């Protein structure tokens, strides 16, 4: 069973540090005092809260509804009382808050009604909606809503479904332990995905430093009797677990930035996602827990099955953090996110809590100038020229940075890892990217404001025209009426008319004259503005109005005053 594997450019081999956390099986976590469940956990919109403070919720009850096309639902991880729906600090470098549902567990851990689904007999659209409402998102770290990726390409089927069990980041072993202990159930999830995507073959890529996981998955495949599924051991080299890199290694296909991988006949899911799809479809359980590795500066690194919303310090306490612990990192040492506080909640993206100290992760030596040695380019798995990107980012030359494919950078950290000048290269790219995004947002807002401003001006002009037209029409109607009156009056009795209408006194006449003079002046001022750059149609219309105005003006000057003057 020798499959031809492909290589990706670059990559590094950091110390893996995976042994210690794989010695003990996955453990459960006692219920914490409170769960903080951020509503915004996945890529895409912010789910709307569906509960209010004081509500009782069941385990698995939907508390956040998917918002828009690129969002997925959020659920209560245990039964209890909703204490609050309020902003809370989220596990993100910024230390900003996000709207979260705070639940006080009642200790009963009671499930609500569970909705199962038979994926073989359910139409794909319904299945996707089901998975959206079950809150299934990619558990590899990108937390992209899975239902959006479960659409086969244009042909309605897929060549290769890639399942990512590579887990290339040092310290993290949650996927490894999942494959060792839950390979059978995970495989059921994979089969469901294969069915939805109509995939010809399934390749499960696992780095060859996890022989037990490979064996467990192979045994599960053999037990299932399915064909066209293969667990492939791939060379251990960071970042082999990047989706693009893994697809490249297994199939030789390079999916460019900004393109859908289904256009190339492949799609890639994390093993953890496969397991949650199994739980959602076959057990009816939404995504309310995940496996989390607690490693680093702790006495007993281990994997835990953790409810979403569990405060991290509650979890880390189980593993015995050492006294000099001064930071938590969410994720691994290469791409992990340094957290703003110890009590931030475990979210769907939390594959690992790396407990750190100054001694374990010392600050790099002072930054030196770039000597263009090219080590970063040799290490870059996206074939970029990181030192050029660094130069452009540093000088804030964002246009040039984009020309050198800044957005193809996957921020894997290989360049910073090898840099002999200790330059925080990835920080420069993150800075550039977020500046470019901010500028694009600003530009969009400015364009929208410009459009709206122009529209308002246009509308005001139009309203002015319409008003004038209306006035003209009204005056014309009056004039006709007056004319009609004039025509009928003499017939009835010519001497009655002057007597019937009271002779207007001089003061009133003067007032009317003044008002009309003012109107005439205003019209004269407005005229040049109105007549510039008008289409022939509008000009004809204006000429028409002017003509009618003149007609109206004539009788107005006559001794007979308009009736409603």
């Amino acid at each position, binding site marked *: 069973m020798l499959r031809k594997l492909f290589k990706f450019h670059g990559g590094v081999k950091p110390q893996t540090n995976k042994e210690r956390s794989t010695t003990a099986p996955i453990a459960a976590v006692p219920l914490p005092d409170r769960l903080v469940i951020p509503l915004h956990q996945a890529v895409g919109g912010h789910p709307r809260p569906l509960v209010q403070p004081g509500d009782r919720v069941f385990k698995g009850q939907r508390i956040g509804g998917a918002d828009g096309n690129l969002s997925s639902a959020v659920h209560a991880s245990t039964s209890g009382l909703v204490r609050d729906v309020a902003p809370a600090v989220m596990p993100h470098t910024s230390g900003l808050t996000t709207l979260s549902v705070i639940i006080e567990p009642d200790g009963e851990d009671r499930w609500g009604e569970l909705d199962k689904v038979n994926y073989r007999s359910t139409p794909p659209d319904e299945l996707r909606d089901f998975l959206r409402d079950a809150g299934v998102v990619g558990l590899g770290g990108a937390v992209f809503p899975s239902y959006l990726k479960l659409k086969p390409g244009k042909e309605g089927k897929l060549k290769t479904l890639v399942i990512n069990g590579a887990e290339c980041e040092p310290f993290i072993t949650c996927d490894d332990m999942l494959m060792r202990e839950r390979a059978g159930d995970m495989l059921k999830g994979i089969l469901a995905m294969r069915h939805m995507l109509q995939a010809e073959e399934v390749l499960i890529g696992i780095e060859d430093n996890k022989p037990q996981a490979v064996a467990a998955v192979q045994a599960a495949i053999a037990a299932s009797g399915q064909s066209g599924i293969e667990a492939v051991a791939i060379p251990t080299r960071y970042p082999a677990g990047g989706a693009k890199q893994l697809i490249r290694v297994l199939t030789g296909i390079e999916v460019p930035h900004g393109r859908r991988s289904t256009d190339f006949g492949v799609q890639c899911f994390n093993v953890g996602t496969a397991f949650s799809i199994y739980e959602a479809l076959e057990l009816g359980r939404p995504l309310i827990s995940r496996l989390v590795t607690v490693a680093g500066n702790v006495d007993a690194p281990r994997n835990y099955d953790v409810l979403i919303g569990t405060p991290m310090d509650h979890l880390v306490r189980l593993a015995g953090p050492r006294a000099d612990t001064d930071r938590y990192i969410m994720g691994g040492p290469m791409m992990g996110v340094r957290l703003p506080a110890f009590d931030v909640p475990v979210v769907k993206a939390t594959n690992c809590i790396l407990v750190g100290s100054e001694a374990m992760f010392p600050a790099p030596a002072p930054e030196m100038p770039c000597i*263009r040695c090219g080590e970063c380019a040799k290490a870059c798995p996206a074939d970029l020229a990181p030192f050029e990107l660094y130069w452009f980012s540093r000088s804030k030359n964002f246009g040039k940075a984009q020309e050198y494919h800044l957005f193809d950078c996957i921020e894997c950290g290989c360049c910073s890892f090898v840099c002999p000048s*200790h330059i925080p290269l990835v920080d420069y790219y993150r800075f550039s990217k977020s500046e470019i995004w901010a500028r694009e947002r600003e530009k969009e807002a400015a364009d929208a404001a410009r459009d709206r401003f122009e529209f308002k001006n246009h509308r005001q002009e139009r309203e002015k025209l319409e008003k004038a037209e209306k006035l003209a029409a009204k005056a014309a109607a009056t004039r006709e009426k007056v004319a009609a009156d004039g025509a009928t009056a003499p017939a009835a009795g010519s001497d009655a008319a002057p007597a019937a209408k009271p002779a207007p006194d001089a003061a009133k006449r003067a007032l009317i004259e003044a008002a009309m003079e003012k109107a005439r002046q205003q019209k004269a001022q407005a005229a040049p503005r109105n007549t510039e750059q008008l289409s022939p149609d509008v000009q004809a219309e204006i000429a028409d109005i002017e003509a009618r105005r003149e007609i109206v003006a004539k009788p107005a000057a006559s001794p007979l005053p308009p009736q409603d003057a």
Partner: protein
Amino acid sequence: MINSPFVRKAASVQSVMLQVLLALVPGIAAYVWFFGAGILVQIAIASAAALAGEAAMLAIRGKPKAIFLTDLSAVVTAWLIALTFPPIAPWWLTVTGTLLAVVVVKQLYGGLGQNPFNPAMAAFCLMIVAYPALMSQWPAAGQLDFKTQLDLIFGGLRQVDAITGATPLDALRTALRAAANPDSQVHGLRAAQLMDGPAFGFLGGKGSEWIALGYLVGGLWLIQRKIITWHIPFAFCAALLVTAGLLWGVRPDAFASPVFHLASGGAMLGAFFILTDPVSGATTPRGKLLFAAGAAILTYVIRTFGAYPDGIAFATLLMNILVPIIDMKTQAPVFGHKKD
């Protein structure tokens, strides 16, 4: 605030430079063996001048001295200057050249990583233009004892013509030009016969071919340590062999053999240590090939048709000028955007 990655490879500019210095040791050993310990004195003078110049400039520019003096980049420049200047150059020549390299070519352009030109080679060019005679006096192997060398370096008597000659490259070019002259005694002799003199060894100059071998060994070690890539040395040697081979193949009587070119002068030092300077050289793989091949052709042209004893220095500077455009035009396609 430190962000990911939180782990780093144990690498530093200092260790890179240190390995480059170590790789020069075999060549220097051969140098001492054949030409005496005078070169060590030159290396010491150049190193001291480089560090002093660097320290002064860092102080003026308000940069931290401890980090930049210990990064050893100035020492690498100093060693390259000492190894490319004549071993009996007077001390002030070495000092002036080194200070020019460090102060003007490196620090005035912004220090480490900012210089568009190779400092050592820029210094060599300036000095050979300013002091053509002093820069062209090379003793033959074993000709001078240590005391005489010291006297020459520190300003003793300079009966230059009596004690020194030209480099083998220079000698051969002069001889070949003479051979082309029908009035000359050596008219009609071929290059191989001209190389029979005491200055010549098996392949190139006597002694200097062994130094070249030392550089080759050190350079290969650098490739093995992944400090440099194979591109520049390979392209340089290949292009020099091909260019020299073409003319030699057409007229072996008028041109030196490709092997002679490779083993003489600064070819090996240039291929492995000078052109591979990352700061002033090309950085993309294809760019490195172009850069080194261009330097090789220019070197050959200057050696064969020019007036200076060796062409490496001028070739390096000329190619340095082209580096930005070479790098820009040879950017490799990135992941997912490849044609194949």
